[in-house]
């Protein structure tokens, strides 16, 4: 059986690249036996999804805008 370290690496690869049949079977068997890695797989996929929505709602202050504008006017 592959280790948890190998299994979690395969989980990351799975999202971007096609795993070989052997790797797919190894991962499925591992996740069947190992609850922690199965959890990791669910959580990793969710993190991937939310990372794509990562955003901030900040604003430049009036002072910062002034400074930048002055740079542009030079």
């Amino acid at each position, binding site marked *: 059986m592959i*280790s948890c*370290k190998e299994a979690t690496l395969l989980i990351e690869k799975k999202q971007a690249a096609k795993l070989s049949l052997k790797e797919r079977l190894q991962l499925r068997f591992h996740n069947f036996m190992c609850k922690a890695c199965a959890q990791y797989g669910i959580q990793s996929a*969710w993190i991937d999804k939310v990372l794509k929505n990562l955003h901030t709602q*900040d604003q430049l202050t009036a002072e910062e805008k002034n400074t*930048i504008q002055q740079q542009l006017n030079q």
Partner: protein
Amino acid sequence: MQKHNLEPENWVEKYGDMLLNYALVRVKERDMARDLVQDTFVTALKSIPTFRGEISEKNWLYLVLKTRILDYYKKKKEVLESDMKKDDEDDNYFNDKGHWLKDKLPNEWTTERMVQSEEFMQILLACKDKLSATQALVFTMKYLDGEEAEDICKELNISASNYWVIVHRAKLQLRQCLEKNWMS
């Protein structure tokens, strides 16, 4: 096709906040993000003669900022290289047999906590800021810019296996940070 025009006198008011937020999720410090925005406007102003009107003013400014951000990371190239070496050596998550260390075992997350609220976004951003420069750069390219693994490897001149080590390590760290600061 319609040609696009540039109106530099309106840039700061019209695009300043948008570009700031674009930079903020890509670099750690707010001051750095603001300087990159300023730098973008100054560079764009000088580059006006090269603007051919094929893309919109907004997309053009984004493109200039994106290049500035990549340059900012490339200046840290030495940091990148030492990061990668460190990533190869340390193992804070698994024992020598590759099993989870006891205190790093993933716990179950409740669906109530798996929501994308603004509060959660703050935590996610804070956790992302704890990544090393290399991990942050790879994450930016992979998740925020949606680039393919192959292109990222080429751009950063790293091997595919190195790339996966970085992604794996970064994800382990991010997952751990979210579990500690948000899920429990």
